[in-house]
């Protein structure tokens, strides 16, 4: 079919005065394959849309060039318009003559605008229709990790009728919930929350729990992941549409930074919580308790919260004197500032230092010495118990899992949370999400926000039972593919796998739903076998060619 291109020019309500539109129309009309050139004042308004619709239907074009504002603003609108007219939206080519032409330069820019439009016309000549189609998706979700974030995610998903399997490495659910003494800002205690959540999960028909189980292998793409589950020495395969990682964090007490050895008098937060949960079992009530926080790691949101919570609990249950040695107390979590004030009101003493305190064991007590920057004096404290500084770290196995699944981790080893394009819960792979503390030092309210965003993404992906994709927008030519595996190795979204296509030959196959359309494979393929419709080599070079004309 011969190419027949319709061109619409928009002068943005007559405001683009440094472009001579009639002159452009005259020049463009001389080009080959052009059916018409129409100047409009407001293509984005209803009248403009009507004008486009009637002209396209009348002239039966198979390529549309629109020269208007930035595609960032108008592309979606025009795509919907073309779809409504029964024209394939991939036949649309846009020229940005407002933001990147009229507004960006002083003086007459007619020549540049003309060239930008010619670039778009050159591209439009080569565009081919890309059909949209539905890919069936599996509606079950796997949640890896059975702590607060994992349990909550499963419960929320279940409310939307999505079947969920929680996989927990330990023999019981609960994770860190079992180790916390209190949360601030919530009516319930962690213990109550844990029991009510487990009860809800037991009663929920949509939730299945697998304990003492681990991910051994994941194959497939969004909508159809095949997960090998290792449980009790045996491996079994299950299919899921999406995976939520809620693997949480672990804490490590840091004796190496202080040259301390944990002992009877130097304990972890968890040990303290055990004491607080059964105070009657203590041989002797500790008179003085000191906490050390945030000297070796400034990224200490979670350790600070547990310090504040536990300091208050000590006051309440043991009535001891409490001192907190800190450098810069991190109170950026919801309610943490109030928690800090409350602790001070109840008599917890906060001492601010610049340098690490020197800590020695002395008989049955611990001596802490340091220079207080506010008093300007050396302070020495003898305490019965010292709760050592803790650091929140990614849980064991994060590294293995992330390299197995090609998921990014940040400098601390948490699942990547710094990439602005994926923030907050998306990963480089479609259908895999991170929630809660596994992607950094996240407190409870932040974890809840994560769960909501992951829920929306999962629902969007799975709930209709099928996902709309552009079929074979990126496609490997099975004749040209030499099975070198380069694309499979480099695809950042793991959207390419080997597949047998009609014959004996194995070739690269790109899975539309997992593909994010970056074109890295198209650029790298040594056999030039991969075609990215809309951004193929020919289409990009056709635009380049317009500059010489």
């Amino acid at each position, binding site marked *: 079919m011969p190419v027949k291109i319709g061109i619409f020019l928009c002068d943005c309500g007559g405001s683009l005065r440094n472009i001579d539109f009639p002159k452009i129309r005259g020049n463009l009309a001389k080009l080959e394959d052009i059916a018409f050139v129409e100047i409009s004042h407001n293509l984005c308004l209803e009248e403009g849309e009507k004008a486009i619709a009637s002209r396209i239907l009348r002239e039966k074009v198979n390529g549309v060039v629109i020269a208007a504002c930035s595609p960032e603003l108008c592309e979606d609108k025009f795509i919907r318009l073309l779809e409504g007219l029964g024209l394939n939206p991939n036949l649309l080519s846009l020229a940005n003559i407002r*933001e*990147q032409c009229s507004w*960006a*330069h002083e003086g007459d820019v007619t020549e540049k605008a003309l060239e930008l439009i010619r670039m778009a016309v050159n591209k439009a000549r080569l565009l081919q229709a890309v059909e949209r189609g539905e890919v069936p998706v599996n509606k079950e979700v796997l949640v890896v990790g059975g702590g607060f974030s994992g349990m909550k995610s499963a419960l929320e998903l279940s409310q939307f009728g999505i079947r969920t399997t929680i996989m927990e490495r330990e023999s019981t659910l609960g994770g860190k919930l079992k180790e916390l003494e209190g949360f601030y800002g919530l009516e319930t205690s962690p213990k109550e929350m844990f029991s009510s959540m487990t009860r809800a999960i037991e009663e929920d028909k949509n939730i299945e729990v697998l304990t003492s189980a681990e991910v051994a292998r994941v194959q497939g793409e969004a909508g159809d992941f095949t997960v090998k589950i290792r449980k009790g020495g045996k491996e079994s395969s299950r299919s899921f549409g999406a995976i939520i990682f809620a693997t949480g964090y672990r804490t490590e007490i840091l004796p190496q930074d202080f040259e301390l050895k944990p002992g009877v008098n130097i304990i972890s937060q968890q040990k303290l919580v055990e004491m607080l949960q059964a105070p009657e079992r203590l041989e002797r009530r500790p008179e003085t308790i000191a906490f050390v926080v945030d000297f070796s790691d400034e990224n200490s949101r979670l350790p600070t919260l547990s310090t504040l919570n536990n300091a208050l609990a000590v006051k309440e249950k043991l009535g001891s004197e409490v001192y907190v040695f800190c450098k810069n107390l991190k109170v950026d979590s919801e309610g943490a500032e109030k928690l800090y004030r409350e602790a001070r009101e109840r008599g917890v003493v906060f001492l601010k230092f610049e340098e690490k305190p020197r800590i020695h064991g002395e008989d049955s007590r611990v001596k802490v010495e340091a220079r207080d920057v506010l008093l300007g004096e050396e302070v020495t404290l003898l305490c019965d118990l010292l709760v050592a500084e803790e650091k929140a770290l990614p849980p064991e196995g994060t590294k293995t899992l992330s390299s197995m699944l090609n998921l990014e981790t940040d400098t601390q080893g948490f699942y990547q949370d710094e*990439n602005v394009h994926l923030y907050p819960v998306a990963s480089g792979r479609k259908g895999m999400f991170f929630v809660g503390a596994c992607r950094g030092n996240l407190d409870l309210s932040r974890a809840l926000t994560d769960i909501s965003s992951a829920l929306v993404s999962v629902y969007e992906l799975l709930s209709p039972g099928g996902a709309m994709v552009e079929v074979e927008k990126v496609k490997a030519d099975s004749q040209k593919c030499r099975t070198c595996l380069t694309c499979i190795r480099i695809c950042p979204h793991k959207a390419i796998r080997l597949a047998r296509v009609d014959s004996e030959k194995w070739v690269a196959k790109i899975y539309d739903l997992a593909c994010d359309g970056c*074109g890295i494979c198209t650029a*790298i393929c040594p056999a030039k076998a991969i075609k990215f419709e809309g951004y193929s080599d020919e289409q990009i070079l056709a635009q380049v060619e317009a*500059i010489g004309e």
Partner: protein
Amino acid sequence: MIMGGNNKIIAFCCAESAYRAADRAGRLRIHYPDNVRVIRVPCAGRVSVLHILKAFEKGAAGVLVMGCQEGACRHLTGNIRAKERVKYAEDLLKEVGINGQRVKMVNFGPDMAQRFAREIEEMVEKIKEE
């Protein structure tokens, strides 16, 4: 040395960052030389050595490949691959006697409009000097 008789600059702009920076420059009316032609690509990693070399063949005086900041690529490694390719193209161009500074990789955030304008100006200056 002006090649092919024109002094145009081709800027391959990542749709996630540099293209938005260019839009923003327009919105803020930050003016820059009008001989730049932006080609929108989904990721800087889409740009191959072929595209850069063809641009020079067609008469461009300079080529800019503009992607996201390192560590902030939506496609994780696209901008790093682009950087490697730009380096490769630079070496090839040097061999045939075209100053390596005529092709450049730039990393952007979508809000860095001033920087976009400055990069274009710098490239134009470089071309004028020769």
